[in-house]
């Protein structure tokens, strides 16, 4: 790979050991994917996870004196102070989250602790070169904004934040952004939840190809697009999609395919959606809780739940996970008060795949998110997956 003088100096250690390690990793990555050179990035997001490998690498970079040139927003771990009020957090887990916070603070990250930075704090412009890790983020950045990112790992995104650059390959290049498979949606897409199922159903027939959707509604909500991308990338490593007439690189079918013929045409039927729904949900029964916000809910979604529970009493506890910014907004709008009066709550800075939820292990809940159910399999949490209004009805009955 051809390096600039500054990059060569960085590799030689002139900008410190941390930057040297980060660039060395990126050069190795660039070599694998045949990148000719590095390009500057103007935004980054790191999928902080508060897991062992995450802390190990973040602390290693802190010890090496690394500072972020392009301050990344970061994913949530868990909100220690909140959970200490409602359950017992072990010494080990407390120590771990404190170390994570400290390491990222020292690296100079922007501590949003939110997995949907593309909705409110880290929003790129069309064509911008960025480095995002987080499975719901990369498809949104590429597809909805038409900005450019590869499907970074948490660590490679942190390297990009430290060096301020990324190797030029993959989805950063025009020719790799074209659609490959035409997805003809014959199923009825009625609401945001149907995009979850659509996103989960498509990769089974796709195998690492970029899909181009036709015959879906032309004015999807931000939540619908977030859901579609999150599930595509969870079920099948798909970091970019096009919707003809909706996403900016697909004004027409021809534009989406860069004037070429689709490699394949697939059809998604109502039966496909029902089948995937059946496969991913746990069976109904008595439930103990409801968990929303995987990915983090935006304010419209918080309001939807608040409107549904207004003046009612839930039989089981309900949590909505969201960003601190959205929680603040929900508080000012009176939505938090409405939720709490019904027996629900909003928890910020928190992911469902964290040890703070140990008090729910072995129990059954409802959620609207297949991604939530997928990643909690290792934590022995069961999830019945339904659309939001059905989840709320279940919360009032205590069963589904």
């Amino acid at each position: 790979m051809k390096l600039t003088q500054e990059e060569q100096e960085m590799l030689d250690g002139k900008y410190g050991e941390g930057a040297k390690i980060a660039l060395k990793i990126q050069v190795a990555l660039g070599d694998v994917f045949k990148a000719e050179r590095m390009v500057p990035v103007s935004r980054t997001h790191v999928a902080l996870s508060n897991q062992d490998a995450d802390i190990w690498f973040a602390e290693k970079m802190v010890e090496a004196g690394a500072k972020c040139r392009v301050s990344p927003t970061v994913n949530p771990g868990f909100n220690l102070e909140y959970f200490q009020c409602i359950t017992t957090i072990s010494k080990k887990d407390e120590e771990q989250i404190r170390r994570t916070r400290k390491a990222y603070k020292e690296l100079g990250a922007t501590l949003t602790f939110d997995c949907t930075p593309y909705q409110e704090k880290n929003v790129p412009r069309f064509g911008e070169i960025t480095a995002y890790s987080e499975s719901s983020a990369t498809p949104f950045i590429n597809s909805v904004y038409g900005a450019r990112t590869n499907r970074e790992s948490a660590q490679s995104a942190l390297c990009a934040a430290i060096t301020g650059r990324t190797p030029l390959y993959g989805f950063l290049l025009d020719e790799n952004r074209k659609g490959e498979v035409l997805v003809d949606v014959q199923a009825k897409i009625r609401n945001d939840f149907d995009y979850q199922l659509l996103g989960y159903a498509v990769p089974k027939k796709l195998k690492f190809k970029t899909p181009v959707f036709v015959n879906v509604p032309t004015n999807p909500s931000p939540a619908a697009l977030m859901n579609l991308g999150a599930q595509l990338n969870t079920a099948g490593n798909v970091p970019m999609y096009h919707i003809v007439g909706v996403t900016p690189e697909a004004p027409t079918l021809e534009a989406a395919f860069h004037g070429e013929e689709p490699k394949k045409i697939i059809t998604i039927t109502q039966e496909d959606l029902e089948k995937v729904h059946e496969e991913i949900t746990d069976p109904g029964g008595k439930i103990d809780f409801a968990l929303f916000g995987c990915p983090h809910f935006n304010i419209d979604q918080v309001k939807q739940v608040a409107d549904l529970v207004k003046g009612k009493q839930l039989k089981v506890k309900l949590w909505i996970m969201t960003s601190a910014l959205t929680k603040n907004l929900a508080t000012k709008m009176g939505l938090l008060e409405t939720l709490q009066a019904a027996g629900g709550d909003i928890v910020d800075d928190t992911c469902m795949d964290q040890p703070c939820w140990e008090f729910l292990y072995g129990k059954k809940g409802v959620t609207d998110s297949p991604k939530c159910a997928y990643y909690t399999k290792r934590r022995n949490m069961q999830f019945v997956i339904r659309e939001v209004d059905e989840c709320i009805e279940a919360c009032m009955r205590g069963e589904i």
Partner: protein
Amino acid sequence: MAETFSCHKVSEGVIEGEVLVSTDDLCFYLVDPETGKVIEKNHALEGQSVADKILIFPSGKGSSVVQADGMYQLKMTGKGPKALIIRYPDTVLVASSIIMELPVVDKVDEAFYEKIKNGDHVLLDADKGQVTIQ
């Protein structure tokens, strides 16, 4: 009679060992770090241990976070593979391997795939871009 095939370095290193072939993609989060056994339901390697093996599989899978964490835990317990031979590199697997200093190659000569079988002993030299069936 030893036979050598060309390959392409993904992550540096020279190592020898016994191979284990998987026809399925692999997520290291679904490998038990205590035993090295694959715990993913219906996986081609379900119940088999990847510990100390040179692992041959098509591609990595799983989120940006869990793949690295799975590999890290295996590295810490010493129950991880010695090296990887893959067909389709993705950013997450490549970045994780480089960071964990696990030797990895791709683009191995097709003739290698026709010859290789479970239990064969190979010498993998990622730096030179060579893999030898011994």
